[in-house]
């Protein structure tokens, strides 16, 4: 069974890029539009790895990660943060929230796939 990746990003373009890249790499892809949608999809789809943006409406990436980590059932799912935010304190905040790793936008498809494989259980 192919591994499942949940991507959370408010940009339609980015969601399509991620879907394109990850499904070509053989992953099953579920997309969510913001953190709140992400929480919903997390429980519905039970992904192996989550990739999330930081800047999002409704519920941003930090809050999303915190909520995932609070969720008793899915708190161990690896979460990669995909962001253009370059500030170290933002990175630190994401790490404190419980992020597993970082990928900087724009992403290189091969590097993204490797990053996902790197944390894939």
């Amino acid at each position, binding site marked *: 069974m192919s591994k499942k990746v949940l991507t959370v990003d408010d940009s339609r373009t980015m969601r399509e890029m991620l879907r394109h890249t990850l499904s070509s790499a053989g992953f099953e892809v579920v997309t969510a539009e913001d953190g709140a949608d992400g929480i919903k999809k997390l429980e519905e789809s039970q992904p192996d790895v989550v990739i999330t943006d930081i800047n999002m409406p409704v519920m941003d990436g930090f809050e999303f990660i915190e909520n995932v980590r609070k*969720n*008793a059932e899915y708190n161990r799912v690896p979460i990669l943060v995909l962001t*253009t935010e370059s500030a170290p304190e933002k*990175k630190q905040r994401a790490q404190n929230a*419980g992020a597993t790793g970082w990928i900087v936008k724009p992403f290189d498809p091969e590097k993204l796939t490797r990053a996902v494989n790197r944390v894939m*259980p």
Partner: protein
Amino acid sequence: MSLDDIKETFFAECADQMADLETGLHEIQSDGPDMDTVNAVFRAVHSIKGGAGAFGYAALVSFAHVFENALDVIRNDLSQVNEERMDLLLRSVDVLSDVIEAERTGTEPTDTTALARELEAAFGLTAEGEEEEDALEDFAPVTIDLEAFDLDASDAAETPSGRTYRISFAPHASLYLKGHDPLRFFRELSEMGTLGVSCDLDSLPKLTELSPDESYLKWQVDMETERDRDEIAAVFDWVDGECDLTIEEIGGGSPDGGGEELDDFLANLGDDPELADIGSEETPSGGEAASAGAAPVAGPDSPPSTAPVASGGATGDNGKDRSGEAVRRPEKEKKEVKKPSQTIRVESEKVDRLINLMGELVINQAMLAERIGQAGFGNASPAALALVELQNLTREIQSGVMAIRAQPVKPVFMRMSRIVREVCSATGKKALLELEGEHTEVDTTVIEGLIDPLTHMIRNAVDHGIEDPETRVALGKPPQGTVKLSAYHSSGRIVIEIKDDGAGINRERVLNKAIEKGIVGRDAKLTDDEIDNLIFAPGFSTAEAITDVSGRGVGMDVVRQSIQSLGGRVSISSEPGKGSLFSMSLPLTLAVLDGMIVKEAGQTLVLPVSAVLETATLKPGDVYTIGKNHRVVKMRNTLIPIIDVGRQLGFAEQRTDFTKGTIMVVEGGKSGMGAFIVDSIEGQQQVVIKSLETNYKRVPSIAAATILGNGQIALILDCDHIVSHNSGEPEAELIQSMAG
């Protein structure tokens, strides 16, 4: 979805983001900054930058980056907003939109350097060079350097050459909280070289003292590899601060890892049932824990309330309590989250098809009504009652389908604020565009047709209407003029108004110009209203000198024409010294039309109701003959040429008795009014517009066709064309065959 499709998605999304961006900035400008709006505005630019980066649009990325940094200043401190900065940000929106367009069309992007510098200066950002360096520095540590693990990794593992490292790895409890698993680090390291791994169980307490929230295990990995130290350290990039890590080179030789090979080790960790039977030696290692999917390990630095707890049996009572809380909290937060309305994107072709089918349905229902009438069923008969039900349903479907294509006029209105800024900067005037009713919806086909006339009128309002700041101050007005653009629905149509607080129309000048150009006679006596409306006359331009902004060879006559081609009307009222008001009334859609159904020489014709000013019957003395064939009627204080529609279109003989028909005074574009004479008026009804051009070919004097309830095709008249081409002679024979 191919990459090209994704690019299309990107540009479509850019358009949305630009609209959000502009709206947000306008809100900030009018209502002052609030965090939500500023965040939304920031996100818009941020998203554009993100997508642009993905496609390698360097010019777009670089300008969006500066823009984003400027917005970040406001995001960090709302009091940083001032008028000068807002002005810059709005100009940046225009430039950003140009850059996007250039990237989309693959043309040379606009030079953004000057504006970028201005932004940097105004927002106290560092100079561009430094900025980029900073950004790179920031980026570097978070970039995952996977080059180190390229595809040759397995080869390297088979032929290790020389270097041996000793890696001591002691995860903190917090490492597990971030979804990490030591197993994965070893898996990655094993792709880089040959490993020998030993696990240090010394800190492991007795089972009774063991806390599932703690981390007790340490590992020592001896690794023989070609890679250098940095590449090995990169594997642990993401757990910086979450573990104690040392990597030291211990020279050549075979790895000394306590004898246990990685594979065995992993096998033990994952599957070995004996491992679970060790009792006091049971290892709550991350490896096992994560693969079992249920190990609670809380970091000592984590507050208890945020400690994740497992739902599995390994959890103690204490854990269960907290588990309850942990589950409840996200649920509560979910309720507070406002759910945006769900939308779908559909290709416009699909909607167009639906609208066509809806048109067929309307026609079909009209046919059915006619058949039922012919069959002699009474109004109270079951068939007739069922028809009424069907008519109600059809009407609802029709408005529902139309609503799909209905869009708020907002995007067009937003474009106008750019026009105002451009004209202001070209003329040195100061003006602010106020919007009202921008959420009013209208069919997309109408919106598209609105852009050009609106642009022209807004441009005129600033260029001709608003006085320059000094004059305004001298007149006791605020130096900044206001142009108010509003939209509202009124009896099934949309009304769009452009109101300025400028000088108003200089009637003396307008009249003199009209006389000079021969538009009106030298001794003409015109009302103020009539003088104002002269600016719509063809070839009329009030500008004394042709400025950069207007005077592009397009006059208000063209504006009126394009509004009329949308089935709309435009009028002006003006008060000298106070300003002018242009008012447009347009249909909500171009798919159906309110038609006046008329009969002429046995043919059924349709006139757009919007074009008809009044109807009348004539008495013998009302008609005057000019020349051989030209007849006029005196109405509305003026002489209106009578147009014998049947004769003009070529399917009826010249009418001799003008008192037998009905006159319809029609507004017909450039040439003013025409009095159409037809045999009778049948009634008024909505008709579905069918393009003649698409289905047959373009026919002069005919705007489109429709299908009536009896299945007959009826032609919709192009009033504008008929009035302006009224020669008293019939149109081409072609029309005879069409109408026959």
